[in-house]
């Protein structure tokens, strides 16, 4: 439940900053990014407060100042040191990612890392007792800094983790060594290998923090720790045994095989580097610190890390695009409780909006309540949070919510007639300032907008299935849409923690159109006699999350066929004909996962694939991937999307396009457009005109980007 005005405003006083609260702030502060003050009994409080940012990060400047501060502490020898953050919402979210993007030279990185290690090493070695107070996010370099303290106290809202692996890296500020020697090394490795963050209680259970306390007990807790002497915990016998060389070798083998189940280690070198680091140096913290520097520097220069960092920045850029200053949405109304409608409703109520949901068949609304409860269960939400989510989701038997909602989202069957009836009814009742959105995936918005009274307040919000997993939402404009409408729609997408990308209303919009080029070619190849298993293996070898045949089976072959037919009508595929096998299957009602049989037989939601040990064919990969890329260029040329960077982001977050490749267009850059064009031409001769390079390859703006 959100707090009231009064409580919200007095909550501002909550944070305990000890002597910092009364010390001079602002003027005359010796440091830009740190605040420091001593209390009456000689304990120094040091708070990170990075200048000009809402969240703390670890930068060169932050560390340089810390170095000076440590000089002063060495000199003054206070009774103890409290380290915390002066920001309201977080301790520190880790290293500033941007500085990793400017990496040029290997030796520079190593030097820079060594220096950083030296500084935090001084904190770790300082003779006075040190206590980190952790609230909010404490991630990556932030946690590594806290690990240098003797004690860590977590406030209830703390979240801690070392997510570097998600960027193709491992911790680089001593975290690999300090964490494995602080807690059960296997749990430490799991934390770093998965990149997952843990809440305060889990952190306590892991031994990552000494205690979980409330903000209101910080002063007393510090006092107790400083005055009653500090017990340094020694590693348990189990942990010491686990740290022996033979045990590490055994465990490392386990970790490797588990990791290989999750990711293709050829594409993702970081897990192996991390495992090797521990396997080789797990018993010697100093050696491991040394080796971490080398290993981190090497990873940072890998294309995987650089591309994943690129993808991270793309996500940040998309999040920024969602910040349009629009007022927060309070109430959305969903019309149509089919699988997309109920998914959207569930997600929005999970994200704190009041949601009313209407369907002509009220039993569908009942299913929406059920699936929302299931989503909460899958997220392991506590009982009271689940109840709040369900309380916000209001089954609306008479479509009354349409009158009070800020945003009405239509998710009824893909038929113009039905949709237009819904709109004319909705428009008559909607608030004058409310937005009307459609979740259509196949009908051009111009068509839908034709009979609207207020086409300027109409927009497409194309969610992907399942909404709780797919981060992308295509914000679809049309000729008569108001710019403010688009901006508000983007803000809405941002508010519910999804990533908006603005696309023009053309057939299939962006992601589905590009993906269907991939799927259709795969179908074509099946018709030619290539075993589906080989195709899926090829795509997965390239780095797609799911092979095209399995994907089609999962989406539903009937739906794939319908989309393909709609698209081919609107886009006129060069060869006109759609692959035959899929049609046969659909006629037999073999629609994939949902019918238990499609291209594959499905058992317990898993396809039964024949073992196929034949090596992956490069030609197969190109035949699957290049149509997507050609389609990307066509979309750019047609202006379906304006910014090629965002196209890459959309394909990664909407279609799972191999993230470690940095997006389809980035892939072209890396491989060279020359090579791709030659291959496309060759394929056009060999397999058909559909491979002929799109005229966009000649477009200077596109060429520039691809160079």
């Amino acid at each position, binding site marked *: *439940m959100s*707090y*009231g005005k*009064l*409580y919200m405003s007095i909550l501002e006083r909550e944070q305990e900053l000890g002597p910092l609260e009364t010390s001079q702030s602002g003027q005359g502060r010796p440091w830009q990014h740190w605040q420091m003050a001593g209390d009456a009994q000689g304990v120094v409080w040091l708070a990170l407060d990075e200048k000009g940012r809402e969240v703390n990060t670890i930068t060169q400047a932050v560390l340089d100042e810390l170095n000076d501060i440590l000089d002063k502490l060495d000199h003054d020898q206070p009774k103890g040191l409290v380290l915390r953050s002066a920001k309201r919402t977080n301790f520190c979210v880790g290293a500033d990612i941007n500085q990793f993007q400017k990496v040029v030279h290997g030796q520079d990185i190593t030097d820079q890392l060594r220096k950083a290690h030296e500084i935090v090493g001084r904190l770790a070695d300082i003779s006075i007792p040190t206590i980190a107070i952790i609230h909010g996010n404490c991630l990556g370099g932030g946690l590594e800094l806290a690990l240098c303290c003797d004690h860590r106290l977590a406030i209830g809202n703390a979240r801690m983790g070392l997510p570097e692996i998600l960027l193709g890296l491992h911790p680089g500020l001593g975290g690999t060594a300090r964490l494995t020697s602080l807690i059960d090394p296997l749990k430490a490795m799991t934390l770093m290998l998965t990149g997952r963050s843990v809440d305060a209680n889990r952190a306590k259970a892991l031994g990552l923090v000494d205690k979980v306390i409330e903000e209101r007990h910080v002063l007393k807790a510090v006092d107790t720790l400083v005055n009653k002497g500090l017990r340094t915990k020694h590693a348990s016998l189990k942990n010491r045994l686990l740290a022996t060389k033979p045990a590490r070798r055994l465990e490392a083998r386990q970790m490797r095989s588990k990791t290989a189940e999750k990711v293709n280690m050829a594409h993702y070198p970081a897990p192996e580097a991390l495992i090797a680091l521990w396997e080789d140096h797990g018993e010697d913290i100093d050696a491991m610190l040394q080796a971490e520097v080398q290993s981190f520097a090497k990873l940072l220069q890998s294309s995987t890390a650089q591309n994943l960092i690129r993808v991270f920045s793309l996500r940040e850029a998309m999040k920024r695009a969602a910040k349009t200053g629009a007022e927060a949405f309070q109430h959305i109304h969903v019309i149509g409780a089919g699988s997309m409608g109920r998914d959207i409703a569930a997600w929005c109520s999970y994200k704190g909006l*009041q949601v*009313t949901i209407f369907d002509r068949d*009220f*039993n569908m*609304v*009942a*299913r929406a*309540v*059920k*699936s929302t*409860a299931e989503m909460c269960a899958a997220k392991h939400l506590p009982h009271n949070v689940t*109840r*709040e989510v*369900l*309380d*916000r989701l*209001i*089954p*609306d*038997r*008479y479509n*009354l*919510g349409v009158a*009070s909602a800020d945003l009405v989202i239509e998710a009824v069957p893909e038929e113009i007639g039905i949709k237009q009836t819904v709109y004319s009814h909705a428009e008559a009742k909607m608030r004058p300032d409310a937005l009307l959105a459609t979740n259509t995936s196949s009908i051009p918005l111009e068509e839908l907008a034709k009979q609207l009274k207020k086409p300027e307040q109409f927009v497409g919000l194309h969610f992907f299935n399942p909404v709780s997993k797919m981060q992308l939402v295509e914000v679809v404009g049309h000729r008569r849409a108001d710019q403010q409408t688009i901006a508000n729609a983007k803000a809405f997408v941002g508010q519910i923690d999804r990533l908006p990308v603005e696309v023009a209303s053309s057939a299939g919009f962006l992601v589905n159109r590009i993906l269907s080029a991939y799927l259709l070619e795969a179908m074509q190849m099946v018709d030619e006699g290539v075993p589906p298993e080989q195709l899926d293996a090829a795509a997965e070898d390239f780095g797609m999350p799911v092979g095209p045949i399995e994907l089609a089976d999962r989406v539903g072959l009937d739906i794939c066929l319908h989309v393909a037919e709609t698209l081919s009508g609107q886009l006129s595929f060069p060869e006109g004909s759609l692959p035959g096998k899929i049609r046969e299957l659909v006629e037999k009602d073999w629609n994939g996962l949902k019918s238990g049989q499609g291209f594959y037989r499905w058992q317990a939601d898993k396809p039964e694939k024949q073992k196929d040990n034949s090596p992956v064919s490069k030609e197969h990969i190109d035949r699957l991937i290049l149509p997507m890329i050609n389609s990307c260029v066509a979309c750019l040329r047609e202006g379906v999307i304006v910014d090629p960077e965002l196209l890459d982001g959309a394909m990664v977050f909407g279609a799972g396009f191999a993230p470690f490749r940095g997006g389809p267009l980035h892939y072209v850059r890396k491989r060279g457009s020359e090579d791709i064009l030659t291959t496309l031409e060759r394929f056009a001769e060999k397999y058909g005109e559909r491979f002929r390079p799109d005229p966009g390859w000649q477009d200077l703006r596109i060429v520039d980007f691809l160079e």
Partner: protein
Amino acid sequence: MTDSSEGINSPTHPSGRPVYIIDGARTPFLKVRGKPGPFSPVDLAVLCGRPLLLRQMFPKNAIDQVILGCVNVLANEMNPARIAALRLGMGETMRAFTVQINCGSGMLSVDIGYRMIREGSRELILAGGTDSLSHAPVQFKQSAIEWLADLRGAGSFKKRAQHFRDLHPTDFKPEIALQSGLTDPLAGLSMGETAEILAHLFSISRDEADLFAINSHHRLAQAQKGGFLNGEIEPMISTEGELFDQDDGVRPDCSLASLAKLKPAFEKPFGQVTAGNSSQVTDGASWVILASEAMVKKYALNPRAVIIDSAWSAIDPEIMGLAPVMSIAALLDQQVREFDKIDLWEINEAFASQVLACLKAFECAEFCRQFLDCQSPLGRLNQDRLNVDGGAISLGHPVGASGNRIVLHLVNALQRLNLKRGIASECIGGGQSGAMLIETI
């Protein structure tokens, strides 16, 4: 309008501002089937309140008071009114309290709301009642609780071991709170037994009672078929996705023959009160919205009825079922109204014999003279005007909700039948009763 303002301005009417019933809704009443149902009392109040508030012309925070009647309050839902208000998203500043007068709780909430608006301290009130009898807790006996406390106090292992010698397994036989709740602690009688007493004292035969019960079922079935409850009942969906959209205790095909087969439920083997001619044990909630004239103007509301007056009375717990006679007589007396000026009646069907005893008392000259201070009998209440769409025997009696439901349904029934004036009343375990006079607009 003229007629109702006549009521308000009539000399005997307590002075004050008019109070309007704007709207109201209830959940389907769900029969308790042996295990806890899907909804707690607050769940029911929330699921009922959400669609009701959704269809209003005013924002939720325009309401300035929430009052909820609830008898079986769960330990984790203390002050259900406040919890419901917060869960309904009415904001942290919403005042909310819970009232309890047993079977009259849902009407007491309306009555208090009515008085607050009338005197001018509130403008717009959400007043309801809720109960989830399927969630009535199972409790340890007092003797078991004492035994456990002593065990905790026993210092040594030896003492503790000795303590086990004092253990009587029957101490730990669970007590169903609902059972004790439906037993009058002073009279030592179950509610069913009080109905048996009235049947005897007013010569109500088993057949008369069963016939009344059949009527109740047939009327509810008719109302369901005719859509008379549309808008009154708002459907509920459980987290399992199960949809509940009507009262599920109705038996359209029940007959004298089928009811005659039932054994007495309270006084075996010779009694006559059976499960068939008693109210059903159910889960359910109901809300009405009360508004002042100022709010009606401000939000351009359509008032459906005006509350004219109310009265509460009490008699011996042993004959609690007769108490509506007293509060109805008091109400009519306050208003100088005649019995036959009342177009429609809702008297909660706790037990068929109890309602029938009331009717007999109304028409008994001696009774009226002796106990109601009337020269002539109050009158003959035409059963065609009583509980026209069924009652607690067919649709159930979630104790805290029933008093609210009968007020709500009276408004709806009066409007549907294009009638003016109605009284809703219920008997209350413990020997009390409440009665409320309303007029449609």
